[in-house]
C-alpha cells in the first residue's frame, strides 16, 4: 500500500503553485511604491494571469536553442509593459519606488523597468511552463482557472424594506442554511453551478424579498396561497426554471435573438447549448426550450412594465401560461401601444398647411410622381359625368387661385406676419394586415381561447356544454369513443382522421407541403370555400363540423410612416371594412387622437362601408382615407369614390398636406410627397 502514488491536490490545483499571500505582499512592498492602490496591484496581477500566450512567447526567448540568442527581456514583455502603462495612465508612477528615480527615465527605459518587474512577478507566481532546470513541461502551462473565480450568491437587490409604514427597516435573512436552495446561475455566457439563492424578510410587514420579486400577504389557515407577487422591473437576476437563474445580459440576449433572428425558443436553446454550454465544464444540464420561453416572458414583462411605469402584481404560484395571460391583461392595453401614439417625428408628422403652395390646373385624379406630362385616364362607368365636372371645377379653382395670388403680389402692403400658418401637426398612419393567427373556440362566433390546445376545439364554457356531444354541427347525440362523433357520423370523423392525421400520406405528410393553389387528381377535393381576403365573413362558408379549431384570420397593424406601431389587433374571419372601422374606432376613440390621413390598401372599400353605416359622418370631420398610389392608378379609372377621395398625392395641389414644394440645388421648384410612405425598394426572389 505504501508504494501507491499519492496525489497531493493543493499544489497541482492551485494556479499559483501554492504561493502564499505573504510572499506576494512582500513582493509588492519591495518592488512597487508604498502608496500603490489595491486596484493597481490587482490590474498587474490579472494582466499576468490573463496573458499566458504572450508570456509563453517571452519565456521561450529566455530558453534559447543552441543557435539562438538569449534574451532576458524580450520585446514581447516590453510590449505588455507598454499596454499596462497605457491602461494605468497616471497610476503607472505607483509601480516605481522612490529609489527607481522614474522621472529621470525616458519612455523606453520606463517600459524596460516595468518589464523587469513583470518578469519578476511572473517568476514569483511560477506560471512559466519551464521548471527550475529549464525543462519544458506541458503540464505546467496553466491558464487562469475556475478556482480563482469569485463565489456568487443570488440575493434581494433592495437594501431595506420598501413598505412605507415600515420606514425602511432592515431585512433579515429568511432562509436557514440547511434550506438554502442551490441553483445554476447563467451570467452572460458563463454557467456557475451551486449558487446559493437567498431571500430576505421584513420583520414588521412580513414581506419576503427575492432577487426578482417580492411577495406579501398571508397563506390562510386552509392552506390557500393568498400571497401576491410583485415583479421587480430592475431585478438583476431572473428565475427561469426550478433551479435556474439568469442575469439580465442573458435574458436581453434571448429577447434580441428572437427579435432580430426570428428565433423560436427551441432554436435559441439549441444555439445557446451548442455555443456556450458545450464549451465549458459544468455540472448543470443543457438549457431547455421551456427555460428560454420562461426567460422571454420574464424579460419582456419587465421591459414593457418598466417603460409603462408599472409594477406587475400577480397571485403567487401560478403557472407560466397564466403569468403570460395576466401580463397581457395588465399591460397589453388591447393591442394599443401608447408610447407610439404620443410620438411625433419629422417622418410621421408635418406642420399643417391651410393652402397649397400652388394650385395647378391638373386633373384632381392626377398623382404626383406618375402623371406629370401625362393624360389621366378618364373614368368609365358610374360617376363618369361627376368626374368630368370635378376636373372642370378644379381647373376653375386653379385659375381663381392664380388670379388671387397675382393680386396679392400687386398689393405691396400685405402684412406677411398675418398670413402665418397655425402650427398644428398633420399625422398620417398606415394600416395593413398579415394573414396569421392563433386558434380559437370552434363554436359559432365564439373567439375565446381553446381550453385544451392539444386536440381540444372548444373554450372552457363550450367544453362543458358541447364537449361530450358529437362534433358535427347541428347534431345533439353524444360522442362514441374513441372518435369524436356519434355512431351515425363516425365515417366523417374517420375520413377526417385519415386525411389530416399524423399517420396520413404514409407518414410523410410533414415532409411534403402542398400548395393551396395546386389541384392534382390524387389530392383530396377541397370541400371548404376559401375566405376572400377582403370580404365580410358569410355564414354559408361555415363548416358543418367542429373537428378542428378555427384560426383568427389576420393581424392588422396601424403604424406611422417612420415605422412606430400605434396598435395591432386580431381580426377573426376576414380583413373586412367593418372590422377595420371598428378597430380604428377602438384605437382612436376621440376626435383629437385621430390621424389626418389613414392609408389603407382598401381605403375606398372602407370609405364606402363608412358612408353606408354612418361612421363617415364622424370620421369626415378629422380624417381622410387614402390608398397607395399603385391601387389608385388602377382603380381611379373605374371607381368614382376612389377617384374623388382616395388620391394619395394629388398633383394639382388640392391636398397641401400630402404634397409639399421643395427647391433643388438650382433653386427650381419641384413637388415632393410630404409623407415618405415608400420606404424602400426590395427585390423579391421567388
Amino acid at each position, binding site marked *: 500500500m505504501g508504494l501507491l502514488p499519492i496525489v497531493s491536490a493543493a499544489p497541482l490545483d492551485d494556479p499559483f503553485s501554492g504561493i502564499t499571500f505573504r510572499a506576494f505582499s512582500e513582493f509588492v512592498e519591495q518592488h512597487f511604491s508604498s502608496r500603490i492602490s489595491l486596484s493597481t496591484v490587482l490590474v498587474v496581477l490579472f494582466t499576468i494571469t490573463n496573458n499566458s500566450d504572450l508570456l509563453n512567447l517571452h519565456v521561450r526567448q529566455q530558453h534559447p536553442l543552441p543557435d539562438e540568442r538569449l534574451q532576458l527581456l524580450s520585446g514581447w514583455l516590453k510590449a505588455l509593459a507598454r499596454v499596462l502603462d497605457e491602461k494605468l495612465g497616471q497610476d503607472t508612477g505607483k509601480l516605481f519606488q522612490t529609489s527607481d528615480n522614474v522621472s529621470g527615465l525616458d519612455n523606453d527605459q520606463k517600459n524596460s523597468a516595468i518589464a523587469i518587474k513583470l518578469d519578476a512577478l511572473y517568476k514569483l507566481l511560477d506560471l512559466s511552463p519551464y521548471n527550475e532546470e529549464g525543462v519544458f513541461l506541458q503540464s505546467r502551462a496553466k491558464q487562469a482557472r475556475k478556482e480563482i473565480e469569485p463565489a456568487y450568491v443570488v440575493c434581494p437587490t433592495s437594501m431595506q424594506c420598501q413598505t412605507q409604514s415600515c420606514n425602511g427597516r432592515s431585512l433579515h435573512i429568511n432562509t436557514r442554511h440547511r434550506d438554502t436552495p442551490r441553483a445554476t446561475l447563467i451570467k452572460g455566457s458563463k454557467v456557475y453551478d451551486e449558487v446559493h439563492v437567498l431571500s430576505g424578510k421584513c420583520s414588521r410587514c412580513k414581506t419576503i424579498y427575492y432577487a426578482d420579486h417580492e411577495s406579501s400577504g398571508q397563506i390562510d389557515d386552509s392552506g390557500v396561497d393568498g400571497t401576491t407577487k410583485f415583479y421587480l422591473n430592475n431585478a438583476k437576476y431572473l428565475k427561469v426554471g426550478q433551479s435556474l437563474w439568469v442575469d439580465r445580459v442573458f435574458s436581453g440576449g434571448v*429577447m434580441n435573438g428572437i*427579435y432580430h433572428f*426570428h428565433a*423560436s425558443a427551441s432554436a435559441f436553446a439549441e444555439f445557446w447549448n451548442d455555443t456556450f454550454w458545450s464549451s465549458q465544464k459544468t455540472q448543470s444540464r443543457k438549457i431547455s426550450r421551456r427555460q428560454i420561453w420562461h426567460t422571454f*416572458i420574464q424579460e*419582456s414583462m419587465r*421591459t*414593457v412594465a418598466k*417603460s409603462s411605469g408599472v409594477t406587475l402584481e400577480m397571485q403567487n404560484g401560478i403557472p407560466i*401560461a397564466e403569468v*403570460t*395571460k395576466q*401580463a*397581457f391583461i395588465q*399591460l*397589453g392595453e388591447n*393591442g394599443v*401601444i401608447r*408610447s*407610439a401614439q404620443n*410620438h411625433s*417625428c*419629422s*417622418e410621421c408628422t408635418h406642420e399643417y398647411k391651410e393652402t397649397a403652395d400652388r394650385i395647378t390646373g391638373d386633373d384632381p385624379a392626377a398623382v404626383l410622381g406618375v402623371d406629370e406630362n401625362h393624360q389621366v385616364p378618364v373614368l368609365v362607368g358610374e360617376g363618369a359625368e361627376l368626374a368630368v365636372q370635378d376636373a372642370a371645377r378644379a381647373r376653375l379653382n386653379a385659375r381663381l387661385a392664380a388670379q388671387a395670388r397675382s393680386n396679392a403680389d400687386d398689393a405691396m402692403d400685405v402684412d406677411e406676419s398675418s398670413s402665418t400658418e397655425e402650427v398644428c401637426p398633420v399625422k398620417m398612419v*398606415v*394600416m*395593413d394586415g*398579415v394573414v*396569421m*393567427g*392563433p386558434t*380559437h373556440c370552434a363554436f359559432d362566433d365564439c373567439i*375565446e*381561447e*381553446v381550453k385544451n390546445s392539444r386536440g381540444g376545439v372548444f373554450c372552457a364554457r363550450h367544453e362543458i356544454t358541447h364537449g361530450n356531444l358529437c362534433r358535427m354541427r347541428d347534431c345533439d347525440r353524444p360522442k362514441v369513443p374513441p372518435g369524436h362523433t356519434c355512431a351515425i357520423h363516425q365515417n366523417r370523423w374517420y375520413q377526417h382522421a385519415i386525411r389530416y392525421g399524423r399517420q396520413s400520406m404514409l407518414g410523410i405528410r410533414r415532409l411534403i407541403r402542398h400548395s393551396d393553389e395546386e389541384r392534382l387528381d390524387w389530392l383530396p377535393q377541397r370541400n371548404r370555400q376559401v375566405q376572400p381576403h377582403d370580404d365580410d365573413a358569410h355564414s354559408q362558408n361555415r363548416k358543418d363540423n367542429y373537428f378542428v379549431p378555427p*384560426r383568427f384570420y389576420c*393581424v392588422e*397593424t*396601424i*403604424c*406611422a*410612416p*417612420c*415605422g*412606430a*406601431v400605434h396598435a*395591432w389587433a*386580431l381580426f377573426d374571419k376576414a380583413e373586412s371594412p367593418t372590422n377595420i372601422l371598428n378597430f380604428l374606432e377602438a384605437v382612436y376613440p376621440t376626435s383629437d387622437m385621430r390621424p389626418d390621413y389613414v*392609408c389603407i390598401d382598401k381605403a375606398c372599400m372602407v370609405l364606402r362601408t363608412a358612408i353606408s353605416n354612418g361612421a363617415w359622418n364622424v370620421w369626415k370631420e378629422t380624417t381622410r382615407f387614402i390608398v*397607395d398610389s399603385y391601387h389608385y392608378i388602377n382603380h381611379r379609372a373605374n371607381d368614382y369614390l376612389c377617384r374623388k377621395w382616395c388620391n394619395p398625392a394629388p398633383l394639382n395641389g388640392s391636398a397641401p398636406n400630402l404634397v409639399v414644394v421643395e427647391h433643388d440645388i438650382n433653386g427650381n421648384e419641384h413637388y415632393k410627397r410630404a409623407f415618405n*410612405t*415608400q*420606404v*424602400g*425598394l*426590395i*427585390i*423579391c*426572389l*421567388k
Partner: protein
Amino acid sequence: MTCLIKMCIIQACEQLNAWLGGFQTMLNRMTVYNFKWFLHAMLFIHTQRVIKRQRMKEESIEDDENDEEGINIDEEEE
C-alpha cells in the same frame, strides 16, 4: 422551379408586416394569450427602438448643424 424577379415598392407598414411574417411559424403554434403577449411585446420593443433611432437621427442632424456653425466661428476668428 420558376425564378421570378418581382420588384415592388413596399410601404412602411408592409415592411413591418414582412418582419412580423418571420414569426408566423412560431406564432401559429401558440395559444391565444401566448400569441397576444408575444406579438404585443415584440411590437412594443420594436416601436421603442424605432422611436429611439428616430430621435438619434434627429439629434445627429442637429449636431451636424451645430458643428458647421462652430467651424464658421473658428474661421472667422482666424
